[in-house]
């Protein structure tokens, strides 16, 4: 069998028309000009076989021979080279890949990664949690918090509610800390840090002066975040997700772009929605247990929404904003608390 093609000698851009003949373990090259060369087939390196391209062969010294026929493949015992090319042309394999790939990605990102994160967050040492919380607090304080403008008396009322809450939950007071700050960025709000620090804003305290039990409900919700280790779970989840993405999609052009945009954000949002529900549940359970009307929790949410200037009426917009908002539709949370 004569194989027509082009020889590219090592070391320059020359190209020579040649024909090759394979005999047993030898490959003979006949140059157009009459010159002959012989190579040991075992010492050659085969190029990647790619659809629509002939397969190149490289000789020890670096010269390359490229057959003319784009369907040409050199005889080889390496199964990988043959198998992959066959799969790529097989209708069923391609269809299977289209169906299986998204399913597997869903499984990895929404099942395996969260599972892995849940398994590992317990392993994070306390010192790291402490450090993580303090550093985050430092950054938040610098960026969006100002000293409180609440009077000592106003603070005292909240501190009393706080002490009462910790006592009701029989939690050690030295592992938690309540702080007051003025913040235009957060408005009327509260948040919890992983090391047990809970921040309430001046606006929140002022807006709930008439409803101390609603404020206590907010404190319980935030303590719930700390007790359920939500920050650490979130961090472990985000880290594991990012690592899984980098590992699998290091260079899968396109696929990663499509998913990175939507997948990872939806993933995080979903995680934090579950967490909000968990913290709500924690607060509601303990309120009921200690004879506080769960409706106070609903009241607290209503006040926060009102302060943020969001009209409940607007919350009926389609599924899109519902799925993409960090907090599960506030309306449904209020309804849930009222029915608790």
């Amino acid at each position: 069998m004569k194989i027509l093609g082009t020889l590219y000698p090592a070391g320059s851009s020359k190209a020579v028309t040649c024909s090759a003949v394979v005999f047993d373990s030898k490959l003979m090259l006949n140059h157009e000009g009459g010159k002959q060369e012989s190579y040991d087939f075992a010492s050659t390196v085969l190029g990647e076989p790619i659809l629509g391209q002939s397969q190149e062969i490289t000789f020890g010294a670096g010269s390359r021979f490229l057959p003319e026929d784009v369907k040409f493949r050199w005889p080889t015992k390496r199964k990988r080279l043959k198998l992959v090319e066959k799969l790529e042309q097989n209708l069923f394999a391609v269809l299977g890949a289209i169906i299986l790939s998204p399913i597997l990605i869903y499984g990895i990102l929404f099942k395996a990664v969260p599972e892995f994160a849940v398994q590992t967050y317990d392993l994070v040492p306390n010192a790291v949690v402490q450090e993580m919380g303090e550093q985050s607090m430092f950054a938040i304080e610098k960026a969006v918090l100002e000293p409180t403008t609440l009077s000592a008396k106003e603070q005292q009322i909240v501190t009393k509610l706080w002490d009462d809450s910790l006592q009701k939950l029989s939690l050690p007071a030295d592992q938690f800390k309540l702080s007051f700050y003025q913040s235009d960025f957060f408005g009327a709000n509260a948040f919890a840090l992983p090391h047990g620090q809970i921040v309430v804003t001046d606006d929140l305290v002022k807006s709930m002066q008439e409803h101390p039990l609603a404020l206590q409900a907010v404190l319980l919700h935030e303590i719930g975040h700390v007790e359920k280790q939500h920050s650490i779970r979130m961090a472990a989840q985000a880290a594991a997700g990012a690592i899984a993405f980098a590992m699998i999609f290091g260079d899968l052009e396109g696929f990663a772009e499509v998913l990175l945009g939507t997948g990872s954000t939806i993933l995080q949002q979903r995680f934090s929605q579950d967490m909000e529900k968990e913290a709500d549940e924690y607060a509601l359970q303990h309120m009921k247990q200690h004879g506080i009307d769960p409706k106070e929790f609903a009241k607290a949410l209503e006040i926060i929404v009102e302060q943020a200037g969001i009209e409940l009426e607007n919350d009926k917009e389609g599924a899109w904003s519902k799925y993409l908002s960090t907090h599960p539709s506030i309306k449904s949370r209020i309804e849930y608390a009222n029915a608790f």
Partner: protein
Amino acid sequence: MEEIKLSAQPEHKTHQVLFTGNTKDYFGIWTVNCLLSILTLGIYSAWATVRTKQYFYGHTSIDGHRFNYLATPMQILKGRIIAFAIFALYITLSTYSPAMAVAFFLIWAAAIPWLINQSLRFNLRMTSHRNVRFGFKGSYLDALTHFVLLPIVGALSLYIAMPWVMKKIDTYIHNNIEYGNKALKVELSAGRYYGAVLRCLIVVIGFGVISAIIAGVMGSFGDPGSLGVAMVFISLGFNFLAISLLAGIYQSKIRNHIFANAQLEDVATFESKLDTVEYSLLLATNALAIIFSLGLAFPWTKIRKAKMLAAATTITLSENAEQVIEVYRESQSSLAEEAANVFDVDISLT
């Protein structure tokens, strides 16, 4: 010998760049690449990279000679594993200790010029035509100047100097490219960069005016609730069109300019006649197709783009094209290229 030389000038021949890939074949490669990469938790992606690159390189040819991608999967896998370890360390540090993340970031920032150079070098060294490799000879200091210091100058000038900075960056990249023992030379004009950016600005202003009018008209009737959602979608689609148009204008103008003013000493000159409107439309429809097909149209968009770029390009070769000598260099590691990839430092040659 009957051939008579009419002049002492070497003979020149103009060749159309050909792209022979098709969507059907690449679709198969892409889907199998995706599936196997997921099944092997990313290990196969090194093989996937080689197959994808070789598909596009091998289907691109000049004067009947195709390009080749020379990196081996193992080379890429090794680089990727190290880059991945660094990335995992970075993610872990940055989630649990912001202070450590800052320290890491500073080291990373210092390494960026080196990474950019290494990444360009690796990609070019792994590209060959007629069995002669490309190369890149940029230095750390030059990369630091062009990719870090000049952009800061550009920002400080309130972006007025930015087009000039872009010109400097493109000049740096292209003037350091080699093909065998021949160097690429470009002479770029800042005026062309200002021209391209000016056109983009006009489009931005035009889009701003149109969307303001639409918002005004829509705002004057209809109920605000459902209008909000409609507006979000309309403005998203609008932004999207604007971005495709901007990318299309800038990239086509600059590509044409660079090609017209580049030459490979004694060997080749280039010409690119990429049509701005056609190219912008291609980018816009490509992006739409990817979104509405949930990603499945990706292979089609890539092939379409490669076809248009090839069709717009011609290369004039002198008879010296057969005389280029390969220059042997130390073996290349793909670490920097992979690190650049995983940390999303994207350097693309126009």
